[in-house]
């Protein structure tokens, strides 16, 4: 690995100052499960690595009146082990439970997954479905960007050199809502998504009509995608096969998958349809109170 300097600030302002002073030659380090490997292979060669794990704001994991706050450096094991996340933001727990193996989850963060901006990052479609908002701090102050608009291309995002992702905030969950994330991989564990789908659904009191829905798609375009029309076409509809079929078709319309070693374009389009349906079915069941415990690999 190339030589670099290392700092581990304990205060957000200090981290931001170090980032600003480095003129784009620094990289923030959270769990390091992407960054350390990328430095080893030479893809990134920062002169300074800023370990942001000691900054309190970046390690937050709390559910308050204004929703769920997930610090950008909070590791996956804490997120998927959190009762509030499991109960109300289940799609996020689903994703954090299958990112890498247990050793990776001990370190990897959803903030890092987002900033790595891979089209197949497992947490991103889940965060899109849960309508996550990125809180970004920079020398000029703080701004907010929806998760759905954060990634701009493979490995690229809206962050300027002097900006740091502080947390992802999720709005409070309505009653009778449920969510799910699932991916297709040829193995049981430890693989990169061929297609990943996250969905969140809210039902009316009777549990018969969809009042809100949001769907995120991964690995089927240069960035994770918000399938806006697929979600909108469910609103006001009764839960039925035909309703779900409309969402499946709308989701397929916006994707532009590539053919690579993980699957052909045609296969990914097909799998997107299958997964959108299954993920919606699980999210709907969860919205009716059935926890639908998902055992990875089954």
């Amino acid at each position, binding site marked *: 690995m190339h*030589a670099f300097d*290392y700092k*581990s600030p304990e205060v957000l302002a200090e981290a931001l100052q170090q980032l600003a002073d480095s003129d784009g030659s620094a990289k923030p380090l959270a769990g390091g499960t992407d960054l350390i*490997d990328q430095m080893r292979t030479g893809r990134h060669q920062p002169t300074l690595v800023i370990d942001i794990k000691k900054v309190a704001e970046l390690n937050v994991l709390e559910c308050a009146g204004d929703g769920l706050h997930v610090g950008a450096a909070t590791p996956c094991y804490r997120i998927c082990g959190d009762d509030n996340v499991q109960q109300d933001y289940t799609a996020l727990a689903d994703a954090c439970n299958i990112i890498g193996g247990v*050793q*990776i989850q001990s370190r990897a963060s959803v903030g890092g997954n987002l900033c790595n901006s891979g089209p197949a990052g497992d947490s991103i479609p889940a965060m899109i479905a849960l309508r996550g908002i990125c809180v970004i701090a920079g020398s000029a102050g703080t701004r907010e960007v929806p998760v759905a608009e954060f990634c701009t291309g493979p490995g690229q995002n809206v962050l300027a050199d002097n900006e740091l992702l502080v947390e992802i905030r999720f709005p409070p969950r309505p009653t009778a809502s449920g969510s799910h994330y699932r991916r297709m991989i040829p193995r049981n564990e*430890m693989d990169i998504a061929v297609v990943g789908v996250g969905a969140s659904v809210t039902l009316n009191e009777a549990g018969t009509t969809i009042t809100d829905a949001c769907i995120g798609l991964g690995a089927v375009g240069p960035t994770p995608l918000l399938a806006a029309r697929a979600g909108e076409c469910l609103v006001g509809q009764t839960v039925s096969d035909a309703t779900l079929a409309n969402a499946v078709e709308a989701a397929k319309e916006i994707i532009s998958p590539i053919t690579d070693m993980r699957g052909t374009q045609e296969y990914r389009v097909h799998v997107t349809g299958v997964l959108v349906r299954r993920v919606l079915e699980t999210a709907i069941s969860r919205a009716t109170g059935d926890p639908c415990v998902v055992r990875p690999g089954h």
Partner: protein
Amino acid sequence: MSNKRVVTATINEETAEFLCEPRQTLLEVLRDSLNLTGTKEGCSNGNCGACTVIMNGHAVVSCLVLGVEAEGAEIQTIEGVSCDGSLNEVQSAFLEGAALQCGICTPGFIMQTEALLAEKSNPTEDDIRFYLAGNLCRCTGYDKIVRAVMAAAEQRQVTTG
């Protein structure tokens, strides 16, 4: 650029002080500076789990941890699992169950098993296969490893009552 710094950590319940550059991984430090060569280097990119150690109570792959991040940490390596010089339940179960052939993945599997049993003393086969998914073995086909973990869990429950 040599910007070595002093890092102090607790390794296998003893205070260890070492010099390291920010670019050195914890795996490099353990093997090359501290001579703890029981931790193996496999893929060096976080896929194989051969370099698994327990850091602050959580299993991590030491190839994806910087040595400087170990400042103040509590780390357990394969050298720290035996009991007074004799094999512990997990080590014995791997040996008796022939849960290894070439052995390069074994220290990582044993550390991961230790992390699993600390979390769940009586894991199902499903729990074991999920928890050990980040450890690769190209020799055994995994079945003997899974059976060894089950035997170790059982034995540990007998021992600890």
